[in-house]
């Protein structure tokens, strides 16, 4: 009798309306959009006052339409946002943010060397990306999106990241002494 009663009590507990779990790609896409608001690029990285902030995706695109939806119609500091996709390193053009897809994992050292000091904020969700010299590494911990920022990589890119973003990073990899 006691077990049955307990089951009934448990089942009778009120349940609030649930927000369904969200696909990781959607959260990452919105983070990429938000990064444009919390990172300062040097003026010389824009050819003209109204030049767009370019978010690139290198390799197989994990976002589909959601990244386009995240930036559609948005402007940051008066600049429109633009998405460009590159199949491989040979196709790569200058970007302000470059999301490096996991399909490019074995090329990461070459990609990072190519982008060294070019004013590009490199982002990926590969384990160890920030340790290998990338600027921001996404990871999922305990069912939530987290990101690690490498101050070293941000500095080398000549970028300034707002303290608010740094405070929200799960790990901030320090500058080398």
């Amino acid at each position: 009798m006691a077990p049955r009663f307990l089951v009934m009590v448990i089942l009778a507990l009120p349940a609030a309306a649930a927000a369904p779990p969200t696909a990781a790609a959607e959260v990452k896409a919105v983070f990429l959009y938000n990064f444009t608001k919390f990172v300062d690029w040097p003026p010389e990285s824009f050819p003209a006052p109204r030049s767009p902030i370019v978010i690139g995706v290198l390799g197989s695109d994990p976002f589909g339409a959601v990244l386009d939806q995240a930036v559609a119609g948005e402007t940051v500091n008066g600049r429109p946002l633009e998405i460009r996709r590159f199949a491989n390193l040979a196709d790569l053009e200058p970007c302000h943010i470059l999301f490096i897809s996991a399909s490019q994992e074995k090329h990461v050292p070459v990609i990072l060397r190519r982008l060294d000091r070019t004013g590009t904020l490199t982002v990926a969700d590969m384990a160890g990306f920030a340790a290998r010299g990338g600027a921001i590494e996404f990871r999922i911990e305990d069912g939530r999106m987290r990101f690690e920022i490498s101050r070293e990589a941000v500095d080398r890119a000549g970028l300034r990241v707002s303290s608010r973003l740094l405070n929200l990073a799960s790990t901030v990899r320090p500058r080398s002494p």
Partner: protein
Amino acid sequence: MGYILLVKPARAFHRLDLAALLLAALARTAAGEEIQRLKRLSLEELLDVPITAASGLPERPSDAPWSAHVVTEETIRARGYATLLDLLEDVPQFEIQHKDSETRRNIVSVRGLFGNERLLILYDGVRVTPPSGDFYALSTQFSLRGAKRVEIVVGPMSALYGPDAVSGVINIVTKKGGDLGGARLSGGYGSYGTSDVSASAGASFLGGAEFSATAHRFASDEPFLPGRYPGDFSAAPPVPAGPYDAGSGSLFFHGRLNLGLLETGWLRMDESHSSATGVKPEFSLYDEDARFQTVYDTFYAKHSFFSDDYRWKLDTHAAFHSYEIDPKSRFINSFSNFQDAYKYGYDRTFEFREQVTHQLAAEASLIAGVSYEDHSSLAYSADLDHPFDPGRSADSQGFLYTGSDVVDLNGNPLGIPVDFHYLQYRNLGAFAQLGLKRDSWSVMLGARYDHHTGYGDAVNPRIGVVFEPREKLAVKANYGEALLTPSPFRTHGHFGSFTPTTNGLGQVTGLQSFFFHLPNPGLRPEKLREWDAGAAYRFTEGFWATLNGYYTEVTRLIQDDVATGPGTFKGWPVAAVERAVNRGFARTYGATARVDALARAGRWSLKPNAAYTYSTGGVSGDVLAYSARHSVQTGVEAGRGKLTFYPRLIYRGRTYSAARDPQGGLQSAAPHALVNVFARYSDIITRPLRLSSYLGVTNLFNLRHRNAAFTPGSVGFPAAPQDPIRVAGGLEAEF
């Protein structure tokens, strides 16, 4: 599917085309709405959005759980795992025999091989199981209250972690100060006077310093088993006994300070349980004084250094471990003639490790390092008639073997001073592991060399291969070796008692003993070799299946209590002598089939999982002990809004014991299926603090059941009686 009804009758492919278009449009709209919703969130709120992939379902087939499992904090909370013991119940190829050992309390088997000392447990990479390989109780002291995740690797991992990582390695990763960013209090109360209280707090400071601390106390009067199993408790002890008391308790504390790349910390674990656990009441007192208690302290410091280009990393690790049997630990049993028989022993180990991780190229990484351990041990003592004083030398404390403190008919005192075995030994190790990745292949090659001042040189290799021929399929194979050096307990632990022999006039003529467990310093290390292979296939994003098989061979297997017939000790006859011996050859093999899924049913999100494990083998001609041939672990994590609900079922087939009944037959525990349920209701209020409640029920259907006995049947229960239904509930506050 209602939109199909709006389509006018037409040719089938037209309907399908339109349906596809509508579906695509609906999906786009839904995705677009979700994106707009996410964009309206603050960054802090965005970090709090639940992610589908965090379910414990892997993102890639090669991450699928078989020989390695990662349990996230979300899963720990949803399933109500308060301690590692709770969690291990759900891990395939692990089996726990509860309440069957006087010293170890619960005994774990992994892939058919039993023995807590074969399992290496770490917090943040720092070991918390005795470095000497001494036995320990697998009980409630391994808290998960401050845990961020738990990583479990099944199989021999000596190539990286040292010679005693035989059956597997468990690493409990805890939260840094910044991860906690506040405090969490938890208070629970349950049946049988059970209380479960914990507090965690953490903060980060200017300059990158972070501090966190977690304390967890568990105490229980435990169920009154004589009322539940009157047949097992029908006999009374031959001496007056107080009220039945088999209470248990534990205390856990972990404090850590992170200063940039430097971390220091202190881990403490106290554990206490009845020293009559698993023993018939006529042979051991279930008394409040009869407790077996251990105290474990670890102080550690770790530092990481990164090269300028982040291609290599240097990790330095130093730790001091102190494992001690509390001097108040005592047995009151037939071996001590129902007198207080105190126990003592310790191991103090200084450990140093230097490890370099080098990214040789995009496809190759190398881990290499050296380690040094310096052990100082006092082996598990014989029965002592008063508590050992750790502040004084053993010789000055006047201990005599139980029953020997008599004077013979000629007036000669026969008292025999107790032997205390102080041991000093060191272990020097060097290891390297190379990881190579190429297209769909990755290979890991590792080896470790150890020089032990007591047992000489040993090399333990490990090789692993992962092949992902298709996006949805991964195939893995591993081979590893491990060495388990005999602990001081096994080589030098001894216990038993004497009784005087008398002539026809009742005068003492000498001594004799009915039983002694004697030291065996000649024990050799166990050698284990294990092969495992498996495959994982992702049928859809929300449905996985894995299959994993293993084959294990152990040579020179050590068995703790092998009767070797009559003998002598200190020159007096002993009717039954028992020793730990290298018994011979053991072989275990088996397989696990497992499915994991993610689904929705209305407003419920469901994460069902099920695993079936087949386990068999033998030890020198006997069937495998402490491992059921058939076992099933299954459960469903169900969530709806703030409510999570986790019912689970654990089935164990007949489980044999290594202990024999008085007629020489192997003892066993009958098959049984247990149902446990856990429910949590989160965020009852969110301001000024977040308040959640939980309710857990184990053995929901109040089943009478038993686990395989550890103590031989002449003294222990034929099979260890287990708990009736237990209910516990509590509140958690975060602020």
